[in-house]
């Protein structure tokens, strides 16, 4: 396990072993070259994806990137124009939604307005003709888990947004589907409630061992929840990886920019060795990265550095590389950290976040201070596209 941790980065949900790194593991959900066209418009373009049992997989992307269409194809509301979907080894082609081992939590929750909370949750079990006593027991259990027992006799319109969301969750979980599909599950909640629910979701997923696929446009949500994230753009999956992989090693500028915030420098490769690269930045100064990339000297690259990986100091440092000078043009005090807007001597503005480890002190960096901007050679990522 220890060896795996080093190379793959530990998934946040520690009970799920990183089955995607095990070549012998059988994927639970197999999406093979799936394409979906609506008339001329290609919503999902030749997507292939393996998801393993017990994963909490996020499909992340902006609106119109095809993530919801992909989810609806898994649920059976849309059928692929080309390609195949397997769930637990079974080809889903031609299987209607009501015969699929999946349940979905809808973005709008889609609670039946004329039914009580209890009736909503028991609906799925009743369709499968479970005995009355078992339905009662399982519904009670589920309501207990989402802490809605006191509200079981209420109608959806008598509930708050957060409560409705939990009813929707209970309703989709009560049948213990092989695969739970969640469409922007936390979209309608305020920040506090979101955070609480995120952890609740992870907890539930952990306890029931159900495979989750979450569609979201919110990168923070995807980061906290997921074992792995698939970043989608224009109907295609552009990168798949754990939250750490996606954040620390984005494959291109688009992903780097979409996930979190990033400072991008354009430059030219001067040295490309096994153990390091040296890039001459267009903004002046050299960027030294302590791992090699496979590219030829002279090639144009972009270097991405996360704001929190940059350090500011009022000392006048004269390092040969990974050091530039600038003037603080703006400070946003956030309490736990501050965001600094620094104008480099080349004129480019960069964003730097630093934790406020001490209360206001002499050392504090102020507006219009001249600062040295440095970072560790491990921090930048060189991107070829």
């Amino acid at each position: 396990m220890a060896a795996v941790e080093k190379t793959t980065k530990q998934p946040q949900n520690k009970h799920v072993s990183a089955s995607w790194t095990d070549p012998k593991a059988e994927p639970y959900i197999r999406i093979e070259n799936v394409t979906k066209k609506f008339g001329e418009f290609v919503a999902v373009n030749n997507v292939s994806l393996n998801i393993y049992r017990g994963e909490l997989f996020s499909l992340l992307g902006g609106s119109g990137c095809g993530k919801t269409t992909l989810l609806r194809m898994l649920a059976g509301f849309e059928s692929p124009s080309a390609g195949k979907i397997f769930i637990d080894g079974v080809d889903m082609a031609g299987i209607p939604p009501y015969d699929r081992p999946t349940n979905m939590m809808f973005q709008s929750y889609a609670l039946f307005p004329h039914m009580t909370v209890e009736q909503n949750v028991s609906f799925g079990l009743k369709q499968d003709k479970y005995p009355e006593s078992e339905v009662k027991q399982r519904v009670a259990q589920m309501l207990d888990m989402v802490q809605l027992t006191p509200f079981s006799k209420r109608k959806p319109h008598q509930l708050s947004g957060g409560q409705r969301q939990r009813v929707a969750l209970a309703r989709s979980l009560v049948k213990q589907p092989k695969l739970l599909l969640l469409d922007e599950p936390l979209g309608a909640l305020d920040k506090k409630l979101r955070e609480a629910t995120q952890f609740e979701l992870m907890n539930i997923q952990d306890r029931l061992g159900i495979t989750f696929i979450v569609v979201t446009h919110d990168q923070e949500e995807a980061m906290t929840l997921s074992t792995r994230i698939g970043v989608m753009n224009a109907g295609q999956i552009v990168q798949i990886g754990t939250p750490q992989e996606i954040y620390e090693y984005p494959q291109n500028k688009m992903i780097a920019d979409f996930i979190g915030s990033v400072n991008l420098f354009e430059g030219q490769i001067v040295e490309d060795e096994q153990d390091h690269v040296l890039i001459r930045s267009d903004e002046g100064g050299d960027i030294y990265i302590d791992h090699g990339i496979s590219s030829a000297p002279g090639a144009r690259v972009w270097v991405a550095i996360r704001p929190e990986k940059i350090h500011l100091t009022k000392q006048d440092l004269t390092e040969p590389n990974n050091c530039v000078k600038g003037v603080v043009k703006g400070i946003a005090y956030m309490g736990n950290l501050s965001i600094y807007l620094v104008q480099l001597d080349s004129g480019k503005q960069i964003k730097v976040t630093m934790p406020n480890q001490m209360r206001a002190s002499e050392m504090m960096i102020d507006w219009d201070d001249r600062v040295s901007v440095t970072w560790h050679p491990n921090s930048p990522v060189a991107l070829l596209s």
Partner: protein
Amino acid sequence: MASTDIANRASRLPASGWLESLLTGLGIRGRTLVIAIPFVWLLLFFFLPFLIVIWVSTSFVVIAQPPYTHIQDGTFTLNIGESFGRLVSDALYIKAYLNSLQVAALSTILCLIIGYPLAYGMARCSQSTRNILLMLVILPFWTSFLIRVYAWIGLLKNNGLINEILLSLNIIDSPLNMMNTNFAVYLGIVYSYLPFMILPLYANLEKMDLALIEAATDLGCKPLKAFFLITVPLSFPGIVAGSMLVFIPAVGEYVIPELLGGPSSLMIGRVLVNEFFSNRDWPTASAVAVAILLALVVPLMIYQKYQDKELEKES
């Protein structure tokens, strides 16, 4: 709460014009005026005539102009017993009432059975087709109701269009007798009132969230069952509204049974007209009118209560 908001906003509007200063001078607020106009209209042209009808129903028949009086043996008397008593004692009225209710109820059910699939189909069409279909439903209103009912005579009579086509195709040997039957009355009522069933149903089904049906099928419910478990219960307000719009006018319907129905299709509307114009018995006719109204107020109140509940739910 919403009304005070509006009032506050209204009071913040700049004062302008002679009308407003006049009204303010008289101590009348704009809001009162807006409500007062329809209120006074209904009071003058609905409530007052109704009171007159009640008044007439308590009088005696005389051969005079007008043919009723409250003076009996030289003294003023309210004659409540005779007219209303006749409604109960004479089997004719009770039979006519029951017949009217039956015709109206059955027509309503027929309208619902025909109208629901139509409204459902319309609501599931694309936006452009929907508008065309909606136009087609409303189109008959551009022709006078009376003319449309008359047109059915031309279709239904023994040497009418339908019989002639069937005869020429050798499907029947002798003309079908359709005119002046109960069948013709039902046909006329269902034909005339069908749009009133379709429109509220359509309005209801059109705004239904299709994700609900998807959620039901996702939970293992087959589409037909989902229709009965989700769509039908949710369209209940539309069903109630449409049914009321068909049932209430159908109970008092006069033109259709008069033109298409036979002597056996005795409906309360016809009885009413007979009492007024053939028998010149205004007190009894008025009593019939009052009784129809009371019979219809009950379903109307049910409808109103239901609507209030719906509104409450939405807010």
